[in-house]
């Protein structure tokens, strides 16, 4: 690739950023919905493609740096493109292509001036994310980070006439801002008092363990707020559904990964040390997050909220991987750390594709039916077969089923767990099997969630008498975008070694070990993280066998079977009044989960009595953390501000008294 471009990869990346900003501006000024959707969004996708190609070419290449004459006087913008950045840029570019192409179709009917603004915010959002990955000093990082938050906030509140959306946007930006301050403080610790905010200086600063731990905790808090780690996840299920679907896809698929990037950057690159308990903390938090996310996803009735909770789950899984990597690295088991890290990064990449795919899928459903409530959908596979097929790929992938991509990363992660024994710490050795079990539980629940998601939306019969006739399948642009992402899911699932070889550059950089060399030792098809005898997985052959098995069976059956087939009504079990309303709703499908994990939810239910004339059922599951964590905080703030408010008493005498007392107190103080 490098021969194709004489420019350095970092220049390519920078020009893509500039190009995106330019596109955004053009869109803002043009305000012509036809041009924007037909030209600018595809042009943005082209930028993403170039970025992805540039990122791939720079993986493992020399570290590029650049300095822009912007920023603070002593701190111009430093940029750096190393393998870690390149990997995440690749993630951004690769998933961005699909989402941008899809957007071209999705937004085509939008009003011109709103679309112009949206186009601007969208491309600024993309550019800011790219800058986050490339920033090499604290200031640029923060600027890019908050620009990202801000642009996505405005994207979330695109439809700001709805009060819930405004509320969601506010909550999102608030949590993001508090997180950003924490990140800022984390950089404040790392700068070491020299006023040198470049990452290069931070790499060389040696912090005492206490301060290093403080840095890590601050980073975990700050980035966790963006990633949606418990208990800072609160904004996520609000903001993601509120945004237009391509934006949800960007936020969930890519933006959450910026937080993962941040944690990795700070922990493995900037801090020169790791303590094992950081890893244990991350592991625990990750597991709790994963379980929480998936359990809540199972009881959702809004399809985008369901996906948002699923994102929380996946972030939890990624965090588990990071935690494991930290633990291994702190005990100098670098090969294992590389394994865990590879799983983490792989899952991050996977999630970008599958969650992007699913969010875009819900976008198309929303577009076609105007309905987000799962309980009112159903049977769309007949009206939107192409969409149904593409979404099925995403569903199978995110449920962690072989031979798709979600399984690969989960497989790697479980392998990392299995190899953990032998750590010089008895408690950790005990902890890790339990966490592995919990992770397995979360992965299995994800299957439940996805069956619910897919089954309720696409299968069965329409639950409400929706005007079904106008529902038509997705357009060409949407189809291209979705196909790209679905293809990504399949390729990532079937050719893992090929991708792991690229991830190796990152693990080499972060922990000094790679997986690919061992992973590929028995040929590029075989994924063998340690030794072939210990564990091996060959998704390609698995994929082929399943296909061959299916075809073979079909052929045999065809050969020996007469092939007569007739259509009839569904069997009514002797109960003639079967209607489509008797299917499980989303709520009904989630009922077992609600029953089993009742402790986790705040459930309010109105159940009709048998004698009700108009029986009405209403159920609501609430996030108890909201009640336990955020409501008290809000109440404390309110109480405090009420107390402080009393100081502003209105009487001038009291004010004079304040001055007087202040003066006297100070005078007494200096005596």
């Amino acid at each position, binding site marked *: 690739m490098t021969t194709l471009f004489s420019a350095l990869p970092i220049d390519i990346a920078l020009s893509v950023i500039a190009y995106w900003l330019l596109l955004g501006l053009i869109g803002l000024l043009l305000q012509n919905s036809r041009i924007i959707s037909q030209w600018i969004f595809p042009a943005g996708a082209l930028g993403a493609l170039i970025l992805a190609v540039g990122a791939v070419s720079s993986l493992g290449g020399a570290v590029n740096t650049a300095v822009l004459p912007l920023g603070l006087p002593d701190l111009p913008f430093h940029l750096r493109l190393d393998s870690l950045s390149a990997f995440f840029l690749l993630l951004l570019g690769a998933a961005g292509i699909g989402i941008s192409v899809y957007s071209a179709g999705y937004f085509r009917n939008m009003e011109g001036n709103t679309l112009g603004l949206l186009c601007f915010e969208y491309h600024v959002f993309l550019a800011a994310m790219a800058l986050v990955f490339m920033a090499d000093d604290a200031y640029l990082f923060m600027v890019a980070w908050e620009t990202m938050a801000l642009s996505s906030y405005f994207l979330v509140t695109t439809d*700001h006439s709805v009060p819930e959306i405004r509320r969601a946007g506010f909550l999102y930006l*608030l949590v993001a801002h508090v997180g950003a*301050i924490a990140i*800022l403080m984390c950089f404040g610790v790392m700068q070491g008092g020299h006023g040198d905010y470049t990452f290069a200086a931070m790499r060389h600063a040696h912090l005492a363990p206490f301060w290093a731990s403080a840095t890590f905790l601050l980073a975990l808090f700050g980035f966790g707020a963006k990633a949606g780690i418990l208990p800072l996840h609160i904004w996520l299920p609000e903001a993601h559904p509120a945004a237009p679907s391509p934006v949800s896809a960007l936020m969930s698929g890519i933006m959450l990964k910026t937080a993962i990037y941040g944690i990795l950057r700070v922990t493995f690159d900037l801090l020169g040390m790791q303590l094992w308990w950081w890893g244990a903390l991350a592991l625990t938090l990750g597991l709790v997050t994963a379980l929480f996310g998936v359990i809540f996803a199972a009881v959702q009735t809004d399809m985008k909220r369901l996906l948002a909770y699923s994102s929380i789950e996946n972030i939890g899984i990624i965090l588990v991987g990071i935690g494991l990597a930290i633990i291994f690295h702190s005990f100098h088991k670098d090969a294992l750390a590389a394994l865990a890290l590879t799983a983490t990064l792989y899952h991050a990449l996977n999630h970008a594709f599958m969650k992007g795919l699913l969010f875009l899928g819900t976008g198309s459903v929303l577009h076609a039916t105007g309905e987000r409530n799962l309980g009112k959908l159903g049977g769309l596979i007949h009206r939107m077969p192409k969409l149904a097929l593409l979404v099925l790929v995403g569903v199978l992938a995110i449920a962690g089923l072989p031979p798709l991509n979600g399984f690969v990363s989960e497989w790697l992660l479980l392998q990392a767990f299995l190899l953990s024994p032998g750590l010089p710490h008895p408690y950790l050795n005990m902890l890790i099997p339990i966490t592995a079990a919990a992770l397995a539980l979360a992965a299995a629940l994800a299957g439940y969630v996805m069956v619910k998601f897919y089954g309720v939306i696409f299968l069965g019969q329409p639950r409400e008498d929706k005007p079904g006739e106008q529902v038509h399948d997705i357009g060409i642009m949407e189809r291209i975008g979705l196909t790209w992402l679905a293809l990504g899911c399949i390729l990532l699932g079937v050719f893992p070694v090929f991708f792991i070889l690229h991830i190796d550059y990152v693990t080499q950089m972060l922990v000094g070990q790679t997986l690919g060399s061992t992973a590929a030792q028995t040929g590029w098809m075989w994924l063998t993280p340690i030794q072939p005898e210990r564990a091996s997985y060959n998704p390609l052959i698995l994929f082929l066998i399943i296909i061959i098995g299916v075809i073979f069976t079909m052929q045999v059956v065809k050969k020996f079977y007469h092939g007569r087939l007739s259509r009839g009504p569904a069997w009514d079990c002797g109960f003639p009044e079967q209607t489509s309303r008797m299917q499980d709703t989303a709520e009904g499908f989630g009922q077992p989960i609600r029953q089993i994990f009742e402790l986790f939810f705040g459930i309010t239910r109105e159940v009709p009595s048998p004698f009700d004339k108009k029986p009405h059922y209403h159920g609501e599951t609430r996030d108890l953390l909201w009640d336990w964590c955020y409501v008290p905080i809000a109440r404390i*703030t309110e109480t405090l501000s009420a107390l402080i408010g009393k100081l502003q008493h209105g009487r001038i005498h009291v004010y004079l008294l304040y001055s007087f007392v202040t003066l006297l107190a100070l005078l007494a103080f200096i005596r």
Partner: protein
Amino acid sequence: MEIFWILAIPLIGGLLLALFGCQRFAPELNSTMSFGTFLASAFLTVRVITDGPMTALNEQFFVDSFNVFLVALTAFVAFTTSLFSRPYMRIEQHHGKLTINMLRLYHSMYQLFTFTMLLALLTNNLGIMWVAMEAATLTTVLLVSLYRTPASLEAAWKYFILCGVGIAQALFGTILLYFAAEKVLGAGGTALLWTHLDAVKTQLEPTVLSLAFVFLLVGYGTKVGLAPLHNWLPDAHAEGPTPVSAVLSGLLLNVALYAVVRSKVLVDGALGSHFAGSLMMGFGLLSVVMAAFFLSRQKDVKRMFAYSSIEHMGLMTFAFGMGGAVATFAGMLHMTVHSLTKSAIFFAVGHATQKSGTQLMENIRGLIKTNPTIGWGLAIGSLAILGMPPFGVFASEFLIITTAMHTYPWTTPFLLIALGVAFAAIFSRVQTMVFGETNSPRLPHPPALVPVFVHLALVLLLGLYIPPYLADWYRQAAALIG
């Protein structure tokens, strides 16, 4: 010479407008005079850039890198505010809230206020600085009560009494300072000249100076709006005309803080300790935290942004109190961007309240729909003041917080809480004001929103790129302040 013009133009302007303030062209004259002041200050700036610090008129005036940027900033914000006030006051007059005589008073006092601000900044004599600060109160107090409503009278009364009493303490501090200086410099004119004081600051008597600083801090701190001396500030901001709120927040508070910082330099020099700095940090932190909690219970939009000013003044005081090259740099940068941003916000808020006919935030809705420029101005301005990059406020907050994290880590949790609470408080309300649906009538005169966007563009620029000469001033000034 530039100094002369800088001071003469607003003074003459004040007199002229006192005579011709009833004429139709008064607002334009006001803007012209402000523009003249701005031009003169620009020339002065150029001169200082080329020639370095200077004194004038028998050392009674002096310009160094610290005050020159404040002079330029003051003249600039005064100019843009006069541009804003032109349509604003016409609309107020149209709404029947103001008579022509009130407008005359307003325009005349506006110029005189500019004069006192610039005098306070340019004078080398700490006594004159006090006089100018007091005069600043006097010129604005009638502006606060311009509408003659009960609330505005009450606000003006509180403003006058509290600031008057406060500034009286500052006079006591000045006397004590003079008392200490007299020993070293001898009685007479030079003992209050800052340049002289600065030269001999290590020889000044520490006990006297620490005593003096307490009085000075309480005195000028009242004007800065440091908690718990801030009580006049929200009332005065909320009840006065919006251009006055803009200049109070954008200029007066800055100048008062300037006075505190000048005193701090002397005191810390004399004591050879961090006594003054610690006091300032304490007050700053207290102001930030208290303002944040006050913010979360506001209903009136101007009052809310007044509390936000307290918060930011607290942050600056904190930064100057920390001292050191980075923090002082950040403090000055914050002064600049806060003035620009806060006045821009007040401009937008002014038109927004005129549009909806109320200052109650719950009744202001959907600005982006009905008047996109006001709405976006308010939204972007609020985000900028809340420390969202890439705006300049973030740059200074970045430096302040990271430095504090390293030097005084125990302070940062307070800052974190305060900034978080302030963000929640302001943004939740701004959001409902700018978003949503509404049907409010059109304004009788086209609003002047160019200043809003000019300010915000400057703030954006300062967040992304600080011109080298500006950075040099800041650095020199930081070296000066220490």
